[in-house]
């Protein structure tokens, strides 16, 4: 694979619910290292795109390729194993488990020992458990959560829960990370921190990121390119400066003006 071959290649994906076309002919190609924004008014089909990518529902047509490999027919957990991780718009942590365990669970997909080895406590199990603990702790340190690792996830403040979701997603060792409105519910201070954090993990983890975000301040600041979705159809794609001036985009956002909040 050459370096300019797309890491995530979405080709002509369509999905209807009943008679409603939720997403039609969605195509985007992300080269490695790209931070790509996906924006659009409420109900434009952005989260549906994520659900189609992660296999929550099957697309009616089209194909998704991750690092050159087709994901067709794969279940969500198989896609995670292939290197696709996500966060959720309405946070879905494991509420009654500790912060540390939340991240440890995401390491499971990269373990190689068997259940028998775990019950007999054989060396491979012990080694991997140690590695899991170490990695999970390091991940929490990056996201500034290391002093709360024994708390139940449900007791974290909102912003910390959002960060924990990203930490958890990263623990699966993804090639591509899908972030669904990571800044939602954060205060301006937290949003600034989030921008820096996303840039940092993009570089440090060698990621490719597809980002859904309503906060134009965040999107316009950190994204390399942006795709705009309206009624399930792509109406524009380009670098942030170009998108901001695109008349179709402005029209789509009329009544919901694209103001920079942060």
């Amino acid at each position, binding site marked *: 694979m050459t370096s300019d071959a797309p890491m995530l290649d979405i080709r002509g994906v369509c999905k209807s619910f009943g008679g409603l076309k939720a997403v039609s002919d969605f195509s985007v190609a992300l080269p490695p290292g790209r931070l790509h924004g996906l924006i659009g008014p409420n109900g434009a089909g952005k989260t549906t795109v994520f659900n189609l990518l992660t296999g929550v529902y099957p697309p009616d047509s089209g194909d998704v390729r991750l690092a050159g490999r087709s994901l067709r027919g794969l279940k969500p957990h198989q896609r995670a194993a292939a290197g696709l991780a996500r966060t959720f718009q309405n946070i879905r942590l494991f509420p009654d488990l500790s912060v540390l*365990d939340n991240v440890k669970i995401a390491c499971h997909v990269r373990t190689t020992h068997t259940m028998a080895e775990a019950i*007999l406590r054989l060396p491979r199990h*012990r080694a*991997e458990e140690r590695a899991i603990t170490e990695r999970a702790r390091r991940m929490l340190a990056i996201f500034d959560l290391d002093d709360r690792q024994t708390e139940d996830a449900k007791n974290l403040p909102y912003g910390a829960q959002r960060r924990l979701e990203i930490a958890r997603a990263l623990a699966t060792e993804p090639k591509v990370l899908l972030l669904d409105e990571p800044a939602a519910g954060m205060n301006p201070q937290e949003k600034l921190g989030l921008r820096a954090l996303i840039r940092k993990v993009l570089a440090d983890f060698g990621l490719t990121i597809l980002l859904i975000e309503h906060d134009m301040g965040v999107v316009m600041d950190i994204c390399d390119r942006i795709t705009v979705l309206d009624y399930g159809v792509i109406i524009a794609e380009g670098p942030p400066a170009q998108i901001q001036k695109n008349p179709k985009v402005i029209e789509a956002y009329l009544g919901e003006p694209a103001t920079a909040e942060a």
Partner: protein
Amino acid sequence: MSLLAEQARSMRPAWGGSLARGLAPLAAGLVLAVVLQVFIRPYIDPYPAKLLLDIGINCVLAVSLTMVNGFTGQFSMGHAGFMAVGGYASGIVTYYASMRLWGSPEAAGGVLSGILDLQGLPLVTKGDVLFLFSLLVGGTVSGLLGVAVGLPSLRLRGDYLAIVTLGFGEIVRVLIQQTRPVLGTAEEVRSTPTWQLPSHVGGSLGFSGIPTYTSLFWVYLAVAVTLIAAFRLKTGTFGRAFLSIREDEIAAEAMGIKTTRYKVTAFVIAAFFAGIAGGLFSHTLGIGLSAEAAGFLKSFDVIIMVVLGGLGSISGAAAAAVVVTLLPEWLRPVAEYRMVIYALALILMMIFRPKGLFGVREIWERAAWSWLPGWRPAKGARR
């Protein structure tokens, strides 16, 4: 190779130490079982001894059901069905094998009858080998049935499992009632083809004549094995994967957890241990194994233990098994109210302490006691 696996390679401990530490708790369990049998059993009456057996068997049942109902958050209501299947399967093995091999269903020397009063028998007798083998057969048959029951229902949403397992227990009961009479003499057994023997388990009259191999030693060895396996699952990466399914199945799947596979796995492991418990139950002195063993009532008993102990708490389930087994003794003056009290306890527990008494925590964890009045979280944890 994943970063994690790479990192783990450099951390791998030596085999010898791992194995020794891995087996140490089992050795401790073995010692405990021997102590119970050799130093306790001879000094207590048969009745408390029987209670101790019941407690142990119920511990195995409750802890195994915790893996399904507590860890993965599914809800099985047919645990007694698996227990009965295991009990019948291992009973068939010991009864008919004894008939074929030794011409009589009598116990061919129990392990610790050997230790206590050697009577010229070796420490581990042929009967014990057969019994151990039969327990494994019982567990395996029950586990295989677990696959057959779990696969269709666990592909769907959780509460279907409840209804399917409830139905499964009934099917087991009805099918057992259709079986043919037990063959009473060695000649009959020899003249019957082996593949037909499993159908001769007494029908609605019950399966009597199973040799009585079950002793405190075997029961508490099984308790130790079950507890160790359950703890090691729970505290390792597989246990966390199980718990994540309970917490949020969609998020678990998105994090790469094979939710369907693990739900079935947990269910099968639970069925296996229920089968072992069934084997221990059917070889207990004075038990006429009958189809009723597969009925709802026994399943409900086990469910109550799991729910009271805390959904996901192994030590909680074990403690509840002790309490629920002894409770009828204490409630004897108001015996007819026993089930009414259980039922009310279940409802009130769900309303006021929905995760059970100890929740997912173990008894020695501080957070397990949060239901006590005046409880404060540990200093380290910020609220």
